[in-house]
């Protein structure tokens, strides 16, 4: 269980003079769900983009499944991770079903009706009604778009799932269904999940470890129980605020 599927070392990201990451180290271990939290603008999305090779860092190294993301050819690795972006990033010119089929199309040769059936299955698994498959992303509600984005990230049954605020904008019931789904999938598929979230319920329900970003680095990592003991003011108010108390039931 100690194998690291994602290994980030000394990551530095700058935009002009603004330093977003400054020597950040973070690991994702096989089979775990790592919750990544931090105030808005601390660079969670930038970190996620760096891990999947979309953001070329100014310094540091990123390894995913032993592959150096910055230098290696990522064709094979792309079938082994699924990414869900913060705002969904669905292809607006494709229907929802075609969006889910897109990764399958790129990686495997499948008969069209088989591909469509699998896409429908993925859509149903994330809780979308059957008729949603034929709609275009612009015709969906915000929460449905989130689910469609998740279905696309799951299309290839990846080993690593990187999710950027998947439950933001979902109703509480849907959000907790989502938590259950992630828990079920990670057991069944031995998924490792990099989960950026602000949702304390999700942290509580699904995450094995939590990493708190601040000041361009990982401030602390540990279980939820450990987080509750951290003295740092931001971490303290995050995990001891009124919402946290409600979510954690104390």
């Amino acid at each position, binding site marked *: 269980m100690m194998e690291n599927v994602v290994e980030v070392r000394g990551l530095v990201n700058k935009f002009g003079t603004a330093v977003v990451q400054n020597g950040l180290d973070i690991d994702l271990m096989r089979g775990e769900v790592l919750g990544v939290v931090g105030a808005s603008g601390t660079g969670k999305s930038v970190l996620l983009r760096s891990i999947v090779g979309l953001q070329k860092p100014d310094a540091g190294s990123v390894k995913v499944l032993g592959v150096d993301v910055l230098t290696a050819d990522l064709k094979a690795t792309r079938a082994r991770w699924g990414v869900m972006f913060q705002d969904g990033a669905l292809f607006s010119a494709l229907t929802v079903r075609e969006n889910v089929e897109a990764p399958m199309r790129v990686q495997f040769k499948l008969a069209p009706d088989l591909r469509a*059936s699998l896409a429908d*299955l993925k859509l*149903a*698994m994330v809780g979308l009604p059957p008729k949603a498959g034929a709609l275009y992303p612009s015709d969906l509600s915000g929460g449905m778009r989130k689910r469609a984005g998740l279905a696309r990230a799951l299309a290839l*049954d990846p080993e690593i799932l990187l999710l950027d605020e998947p439950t933001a904008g979902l109703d509480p019931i849907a959000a907790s269904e989502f938590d259950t789904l992630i828990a*079920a999938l990670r*057991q*069944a598929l031995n998924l490792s999940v990099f989960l950026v979230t602000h949702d304390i319920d999700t942290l509580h329900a699904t995450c094995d470890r939590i990493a708190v970003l601040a000041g361009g680095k990982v401030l602390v990592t540990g279980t939820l129980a450990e987080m509750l003991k951290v003295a740092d003011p931001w971490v303290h108010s995050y995990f001891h605020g009124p919402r946290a108390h409600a979510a954690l039931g104390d």
Partner: protein
Amino acid sequence: MPPASSQTDPAQTPEGQKLSGDFVLARLTALQGTLTEGDTDLTGLTKLDTAGAWLILTEARRSGALVNGATPAQTLLLKAVKDALPAEAKSVRKPRHVHLLERIDQIGHGTADAAAGLARITGFFGQVVARFAGSLLHPARLRVTSLVFHMQETGLNAVPIVALMAFLIGIVIAYQGADQLRQFGAEVFVVDLIAISVLRELGILLTAIIVAGRSASAFTAAIGSMKMREEVDALRTLGLDPVEVLVLPRVMALFLMLPVLGLIADLAGLLGGGLMSWYELGISPGMFRTRLLDTDVTHFLVGIAKAPFFAVIIGVIGCFQGLQVEGNAESLGRLTSRAVVQAIFMVILADATFSIFFAAAGV
């Protein structure tokens, strides 16, 4: 994907079949059709993902058989997939044959749609005029910064291309005209030829076509991507009128700048024509000038008078198509090209109408 393990075909047992190997998406095509009826034993499976689980479950459901021997993790996966299976296998969609009657029906719908589109664009034009009148009554509501910005974008920045185009057109007309007129020894009439064709028709028409290509597309793309990102809705919720904020400054900028561009095109065209007739026919600049002053000034006026009309056509079509964009990127591209084609077509149509009108009026 890691390589699949060697033995994968289901082995038949008295009660059903015993699966082995990887049941994963990468091998799904190969696995399809290998499953038979009867209970399925999973104990030999090395790997299972949702695609594999889907295959096993759809097969099992069809034959009403049982699935045994799943590990706890596989049981979870099978349950998740089972819950997501559609209520019953859906029938295969057959490609539909299009009958002649349907074709005719399509033509009818197309015509009706075109007519409805024309009605809507006319309505939109009316809206723009109403806002324009409103801004005349309340000049404070006019967005001056935006207006000046678009005057620079659509007017000033188009000067080089418009001037170059008109200069070359002047050269072409002089050259072609000289060739023909020399046969009659009527070289000097080349000045009339250039003056009338450039001032009356080509200067302004070609300018309008270039501006349609440059600005109608830019209007549609800019307004369309705002529409896509709900910026237009955001304006509305702030109580701002998109026509007033987005459309009016653009249309007015074109309205003010197209005559200026037309004038520049006229000058550049005459310059090109003049240089070419000097070089090719030996008509000195002085002679060219004298001859030019003899042509009727109405040619110039007729040409320039058309500019504001063309400007409104281009601006209104560009903005209208931009507001028709829906949520997807495809529609943005489609409507941008439609805006350009429609604007150019309507400009030429209007030019033809003007010709008939001026001919009837005897100008």
